[in-house]
Each structure stands twice: as C-alpha cells, then as structure tokens.
C-alpha cells in the first residue's frame, strides 16, 4: 500500500483549475495556517515533520527556515527553486504542470511563515509552457482572495511572481539562482554570508525546491507529527521519484521511502521491471550527479542487506559502495548500455554547465569531456583512466559551489565500479565501436525477473 500526500489528487479531472483543487480540499491548509497558526508555529510544525529539502541536498527544511535572519525594517524573501535541471529529474515539472495550486498553496503558507510579501518562483527557461500554467493558477488564487493584500483578513500581503531562467543548470544552485534573479550571470556566491542572512538583493532569503514547498501543504493538514510517522528514520514523509531509462514504466512516482530498491524497479506499481526482458546492469538512483551503482550494490548493500529507497539506505556504504537519494532522478541502465558512453554524456553535460568561475571545475570538466571523447572514438590510452581519476579527485571539494563535486562523482563512481569496462574500451578499441561490454564479470547475480 502506498501513501500519497502530493499526488493523491493528480488524476482528478480538472485538478489544474482552482475550482476543482478547492473542491478536493485545496487551500484548507492555507486557511488553517493563516487563521489559526503563528508564523513561528508553522516553522515548528515543519521542524517536527522532519521534512528534508527535496532538491537534492536533503537539508532539514525547518532548520533552514529557522536560520532566516529577521532584521527590523528589511524585507525578506522566499524564492522557489523550480530550475529543475539535474539529468534524470522531471518531478517538479510534473507537479507544476498537473497540480499547480499545490505549489501556490505551499508558497502562500511558507511565505506567511517566513514573512515574505514578495515571493518568486524561478523556473528553468525551457519549461516555458509551465510558466503560463503557474501564472494562471496565481491569477485564480488572487481572484479568490488567496494572494494580494490582507489575505483572509489577516493583514498579511503576498504576491507570487514567476521568473523564467534561460538555460543554465548552475542556476539550480541557490546563490547562482539568486544572482540570476538579480539579472546577472549565474555565478555562485562564496558562502558565508548565506542567503538566510544576505540573499536576494542582499535581503534575508530562503530558497526551497518545488517539492519541498508542496510538502508543506500536507504537513499543515495532517500535522508535522503525523507526517514524521510516515517513512523511516530521518527519511520522513513521501518523496517524488522520476524514473527513466530502460524500464517498462518511466514516470513520476510518489513513494513513502519504506520500499526496497528491488521492489521499486520490479513491481508493477512502480517501474514495472526492465524493458524487453533484459537484465539490470546499473542505476543512478538520485540524478546524474550521484554515484552510479552496479546492480548487485544497488539492490543490496555491501553488507548484503536489502537496500531501500530512502536517504540513509541509498547512502549506506558512503561513496565506496553506496550512492545518494539526491533529487530522486532514477536512471536505470540495462545490460546493453555502455557505462563509458553514458558517463561521457554526463561529462559533456557538466562541461557545458560549468559556469567557469573556478578553475578546477572550468578546466577539469573540459579535460574530462575531452578524454571521454577520446575513449569513445577508440583513441584512449590506459593512462587515461588514472588521469580521469586524478582530475575528478582534484575538482571534488575544491570549488565554490557543488557543481564541481557533481561533475566529479559520476566519473569517480563509473571508474570505481566499472574500471574493467573502461579498460576493455581501450584494449578493444575497434570492437568497442560496434558493441557494448555488456554485463561481463561483475554481472547482475540475479536472474531475469519476469
């Protein structure tokens, strides 16, 4: 049995409109929050819920909110990060496209809790049609008294604006997002000062992911305490997973973080197994930045325990034998996929998306991309593998923002777990042009699950 808190109403016809959303119980949480709760009580409730940032970092949301500076006479801002750009991730898009009022309601509650009278949704520029959907929802909310001046007679004013980015992965990093929202290049800022003290226009700012904000609605509805009972350990509540790659049922799923990875991949309720009866080779469970895991380490931890779809279990074994929940971008690769080629596309991605501010990232991503191109053309040298390893090692942790780490990790994990495939690419350069390495000796120990 799966628990749904965000997508429970997503298939109700017309849920995109205010009327249907309201009829289905929408804006109840907003009414409860604004009429019966103080801003601090809402922050406390979110703290109790154990909600962790759904953008990728998994930082406790209530704690982040409590860091917000509140100097007298200086406006504060809430900014919603809708710059979803992590390869494999398309959950925020789904939520905004099909149930936009859930985000608007969450933003209203969060804006009230944080004291933001002008709240901005920064959405990636490519989601151009979703801007219209959100602006329509904002207009409907305004027409019905949920936005604007003196909302529900509480004296609280709130406007929400949608700002389109223009094609830059880096703007998903919160300080780069703020720079971009100020009309500049998306170069991340050195922290401290943190946005909670000096963010947008140097004012105290909270930046939260779309799914994080949406989760505030059920938290207010059912209370933080009840929300915290769902899931396991510090992985409370539900998480949206966008599943793609070689599976029968790609799509966006809401899970309660108690199911195993194996169940998620093979159950008909979720991914429905590997396409065309093939076998599972590897998986990137939390968006392209997190370490890729071979099938055996994906389904079971190094200790031989079942691996679950939650923050702690996916991270079991650290980066040596584990991975991360990240953004929930779940990319599945079957036995026919080439790890070198797949990692090459990611190396290319990070080179393209590096803002160029820090040399280790700017130069390092460029070199890694070039070396991968060389390997792909069958012109690789055995020393290239160690060279790649050293480059990623020298990027990791040595840049202003985590894009450097995000570029380093996929390369490190690919070499760590699939070094023999890299070697084969070099020793069998001509053959590698026409066929893939397949499963070879690190193969999935599991039989094909029908």
């Amino acid at each position, binding site marked *: 049995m799966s628990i749904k808190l965000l997508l429970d109403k997503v298939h109700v016809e017309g849920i995109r409109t205010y009327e249907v959303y309201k009829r289905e119980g929408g804006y109840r949480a907003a009414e409860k929050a604004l009429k019966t709760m103080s801003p601090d009580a809402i922050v406390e409730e979110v703290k109790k819920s154990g909600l962790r940032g759904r953008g990728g970092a998994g930082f406790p949301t209530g704690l982040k909110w409590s860091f917000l500076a509140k100097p007298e006479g200086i*406006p504060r801002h809430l900014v919603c990060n809708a710059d979803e750009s992590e390869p494999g991730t398309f959950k925020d898009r789904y939520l905004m496209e099909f149930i936009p009022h859930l985000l608007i309601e969450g933003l209203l509650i969060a804006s009230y809790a944080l004291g933001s009278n002008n709240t901005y949704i920064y959405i990636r520029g*490519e989601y151009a049609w979703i801007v219209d959907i959100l602006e329509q929802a904002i207009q409907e909310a305004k027409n019905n008294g949920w936005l604007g001046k003196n909302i529900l007679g509480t004296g609280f004013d709130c*406007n929400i604006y949608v700002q389109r980015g223009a094609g830059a992965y880096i703007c998903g990093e919160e300080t780069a997002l703020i720079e971009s929202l100020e009309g500049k*290049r998306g170069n991340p800022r050195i922290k401290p000062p943190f946005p909670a003290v000096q963010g947008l226009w140097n004012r105290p700012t909270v930046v939260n992911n779309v799914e994080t904000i949406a989760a505030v609605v059920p938290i207010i509805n059912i209370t933080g305490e009840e929300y915290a009972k769902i899931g396991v350990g510090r992985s409370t509540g539900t998480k949206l997973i966008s599943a793609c790659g070689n599976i029968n049922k790609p799509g966006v799923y809401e899970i309660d973080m108690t199911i195993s990875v194996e169940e998620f991949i093979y159950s008909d309720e979720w991914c429905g197994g590997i396409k065309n009866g093939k076998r599972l080779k590897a998986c990137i469970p939390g968006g392209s930045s997190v370490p890729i895991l071979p099938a055996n380490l994906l389904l079971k931890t190094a200790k031989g325990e079942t691996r679950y779809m939650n923050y702690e279990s996916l991270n079991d074994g650290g980066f040596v034998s584990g991975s991360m929940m990240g953004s929930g971008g779940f*990319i599945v690769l079957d036995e026919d996929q080439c790890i070198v080629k*797949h990692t090459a596309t990611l190396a290319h991605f990070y080179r393209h998306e590096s803002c160029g501010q820090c040399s280790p990232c700017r130069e390092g991503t460029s070199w890694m991309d070039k070396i991968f191109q060389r390997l792909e053309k069958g012109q690789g040298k055995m020393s290239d593998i160690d060279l790649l390893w050293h480059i990623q090692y020298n990027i990791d942790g040595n840049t202003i923002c985590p894009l450097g780490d995000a570029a380093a990790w996929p390369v490190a994990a690919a070499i760590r777990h699939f070094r023999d495939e890299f070697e084969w690419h070099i020793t069998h350069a001509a053959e590698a042009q026409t066929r893939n390495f397949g499963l070879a000796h690190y193969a999935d120990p599991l039989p094909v699950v029908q």
Partner: protein
Amino acid sequence: MAVQFSQDTMNKVQEIIARYPEGKQKSALLPILHLAQESFGGWLSVETMDYVASILNLTKIEVYEVATFYSMYNTKPVGKYVFEVCQTGPCMIEGSDEIINYIKDKLNIGVGETTQDGLFTLKTVECLGACGYAPMMQLGKHYKEHLTKEKIDTIIEECSKSASVNN
C-alpha cells in the same frame, strides 16, 4: 529600422519591472531578453541588446555578459524553427543519437547549422527534464517527446506547411 518593442510588449516590460523593488530593475533582464528574442527574429543582435540596455538603464556590457551566459539566448541568427534535441544520458539511452543523425540527413545540415531556406536550425542541448519521455526535443515553447523518425517527418512537414501558409 530601429529596434523597438510594440506598445503591447512595452506594457509587458513595465509590468515585469514592477515585480521588483525600486532600483532593482536589472532583475527584469532575463525576462526582457526573452521578450526581445521573441520580438526580433528569434535572436539577439547587438542592436537588440543595446536597446534592452537602454530600457533597463544598464550598461551594454551588463546585457552582453548575460546574453552570452545563458544557452537559450541566440546571439546569432537562427531558422524559423529551432530543433533543440536533448543528448544527455537518459535521452542517449533511448536513441537520441539516431534522432539527431536522422534530422541531420533529412535536413542536410549539421548541428548548429540552418537550412538554406532559413526554416530549420538543428541544435543539441543538455537535459531538458523530460527523461521519462525520451528521446525528445524542444520546439519553440513546447516539448516534442517520445520522438521517432516518423514523428520527425511529421514535425518537419507541419512546420514547412505552416511556414508556407504564413508567407
């Protein structure tokens, strides 16, 4: 003819500037560059960028550095229809290479090139957040997903038809 927004667009520009605190009109730069690109042939000429600078009371370099940073702004002319095909991992798994090659052959252009009639430009782009519906491309404001060769044929046909009707 000098670059000049229509009155309607100018109203939109004012509405966007009003979203930010006074003196922070630079925040309107990205949205207004989008409007400029839509209004003036799908790309940003130096003249267009200078015009945007004058509207927002910015130095020209402030506009150039932003226009060249973000991949959605075209600083060179493009065709009427720009095919932006995703080539990142999840789309690659689903055969984006084949789609890109098919478009290249069909339109007889390389990546980054425009057909001689000025109708089509082919670009490769990085992950657009449609990984579950791969392979895919962006065409104008919308996504074209689950691409096949047949779908590409239909899209090209529809674009050509719509272009000849509009001329």
